[in-house]
């Protein structure tokens, strides 16, 4: 049995057939000793570094194995054999011994890396390339739950051996239904691997270097002003590092170790990726104003969660909007001034409950759906100024219709009712504590105010809902 190899096509080693749209390279630090137990030996950092030199889309696939998505590298480096040769050369320069295999699927690349040292490139019939490899190679690729005994791990391979199935090609050729009835799901999964099919899509490992700065203070700090200088000293290099990586901070974590050996931790979730050191310092200081540490500070540590930097496209036709940094700082200042829940955007909720709304985070967003254009010459919609919460009032009624309204609260309209419309009955949420059940009236008072009042049908009490203005 013979693997169609690159040696057959060119003086170099490897095989190339066709041009697949996806191509994976597998770097396997196996040396020449294929039987060497893999155990807990992990991929060495140089192998990962070499992989990252070729593509940001890499994934550590197991002990001593890195998968690199090399799709599309042909325009940069050359044909797949050239890419494999370049990876091999980079590994040799770094002084590490790796096997390189390239195939249209991750599974095939991994199997070929283990089974066909030192270099193998397959771009065409994967099943044919895998067919001569021993079936025991699948031991390395099987994803099994923990706690399985070695005997259970080896059971299907023993069965296959009894059947005389020695190669991946033999296993791939078995009828799946019959295999499933005899070896269960595990047998089918093994057969899919033998055919070079991937059990799951390629998910690259996130390249998340830590952006962290820490400073131990010679003397404890117990005020925000000196802390401001310390924060600036830590945030400046952090900001520079983020800028070098074209990243911004999506979240900032501040850990203050206090003299009482406790830690005061604050996490700021930022609405947009920000890396301006001054803005970050201001946000941290404003947050600490609202949530001060209970003791003097010994150690200051800042860590940021990196996120891709923002790309802002300005328009010549529209007025410039404030930057995310400006809005974030403004919101932090306003929250420090008024409170957390009092700043934001109003959002309508899907209910008939009178006056219901929710507060949402305010942010500079792309222009949303526009409301229907109103004819500027037509009268504007009726606007209500809400009394929040509805204020209790005294109402004199005649035959159920209000004839006089008296508000105990100063500044609220009172007087005889000169015109009224109603009642408009509304109720809902009877299954919740927020239930409502009321008769609403629109009343014009002698003083000129037009109000919406209502009578709670459960209690019989009257309330001022708001004033039309």
């Amino acid at each position: 049995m013979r693997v169609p190899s690159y040696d057959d096509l060119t003086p170099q080693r490897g095989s190339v057939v066709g041009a697949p749209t996806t191509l994976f390279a597998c770097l396997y630090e196996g040396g020449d000793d294929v039987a060497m137990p893999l155990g807990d030996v992990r991929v060495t950092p140089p192998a990962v570094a070499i992989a990252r030199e070729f593509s940001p889309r890499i994934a550590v696939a197991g002990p001593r194995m890195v998968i690199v998505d090399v799709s599309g590298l042909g325009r940069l480096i050359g044909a797949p054999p050239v890419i494999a040769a370049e990876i091999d050369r980079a590994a040799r320069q770094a002084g590490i011994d790796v096997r390189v295999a390239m195939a249209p699927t991750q599974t095939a690349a991994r199997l070929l890396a283990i089974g066909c040292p030192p270099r193998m490139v397959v771009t065409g019939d994967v099943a044919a390339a895998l067919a001569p490899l021993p079936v025991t190679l699948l031991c390395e690729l099987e994803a099994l739950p923990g706690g399985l005994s070695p005997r259970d791990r080896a059971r299907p391979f023993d069965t296959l051996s009894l059947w005389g199935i020695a190669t991946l090609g033999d296993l791939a050729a078995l009828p799946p239904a019959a295999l499933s009835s005899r070896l269960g799901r595990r047998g089918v999964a093994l057969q899919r691997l033998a055919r070079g099919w991937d059990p799951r899509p390629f998910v690259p490992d996130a390249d998340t270097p830590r952006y962290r700065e820490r400073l131990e203070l010679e003397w404890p700090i117990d005020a925000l002003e000196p802390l401001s200088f310390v924060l600036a000293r830590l945030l400046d290099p952090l900001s520079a590092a983020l800028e070098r990586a074209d990243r911004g901070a999506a979240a900032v974590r501040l850990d203050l170790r206090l003299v009482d050996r406790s830690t005061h931790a604050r996490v700021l979730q930022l609405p947009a990726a920000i890396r301006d050191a001054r803005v970050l310092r201001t946000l941290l200081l404003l947050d600490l104003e609202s949530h001060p540490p209970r003791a003097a500070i010994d150690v200051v540590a800042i860590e940021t969660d990196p996120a891709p930097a923002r790309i802002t496209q300005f328009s010549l036709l529209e007025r410039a909007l404030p930057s995310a940094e400006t809005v974030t700082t403004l919101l932090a200042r306003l929250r420090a001034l008024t409170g957390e829940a009092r700043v934001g955007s109003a959002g309508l909720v899907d209910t008939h409950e009178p006056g219901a709304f929710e507060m949402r985070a305010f942010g500079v967003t792309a222009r949303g759906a526009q409301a229907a254009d109103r004819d500027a010459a037509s009268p504007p919609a009726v606007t209500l100024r809400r009394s929040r919460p509805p204020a209790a009032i005294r109402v004199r009624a005649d035959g159920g219709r209000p004839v006089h309204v008296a508000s105990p609260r100063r500044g609220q309209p009172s007087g005889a009712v000169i015109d009224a419309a109603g009642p408009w009955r509304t109720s809902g949420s009877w299954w919740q504590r927020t239930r409502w059940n009321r008769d609403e009236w629109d009343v014009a008072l002698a003083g000129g105010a037009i109000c919406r009042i209502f009578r709670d049908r459960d209690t019989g009490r009257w309330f001022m809902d708001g004033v039309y203005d």
Partner: protein
Amino acid sequence: MQAALESLLRARKLDVTLTSAAGRTDAPPDRFAPTGIAALDAALAGGLRRGHLSEAIGAPSTGRTTVVLQAIAAATARGELAALVDACDALDPASAAAAGVDLARLLWVRETGDAARALKAFSLILQAGGFGLVALDLADVAPATVRRFPWTTWMRVARIVEGSDTVALLVAGERVARSPAGVTIALESPAGARWSGTGPRARVFRGLATSPRIVRAH
């Protein structure tokens, strides 16, 4: 001599506070922010002046809130951001949405606790810049409380907004302050409410019949 002096003052951005040219209405059209109410925009010669402090005043049910919400709706429809500092938490989001306000572009600072804090929030938003319209709603604050602010406070607010693209708008029961090129929209409702239907069971409140009176510096 006068022209040279005015030119010098304009160069130093002192023209709107120190010269009689402050109230002129010959500014370029993009310095006006239309309110979205045709009659009012006509009376204002195009809308509210950007970079100036204006005010909408009147008794309850004269349409002050309607004017503000329409101006905010017009601003958000132009793609601008707007802010409302609501000292007494009186905004009805449903009314705002019905008026055409894009709520996602309206920064709402609600229930500030007291008028001084509301004024501080108003100043912070104006200082941040980038908003098309920033309104401070003091309509339900006792007039005596508003009068207690020193007049220099309003001069400082006018100074913050001066030269920017922002319209600063106060809503109050009575005159508070405006910058020299700003306007006072005094709202009255002599005709009261508009109703439809005749029988007691068929009456429906249709809206307010308001008439704005524009007061500006001469």
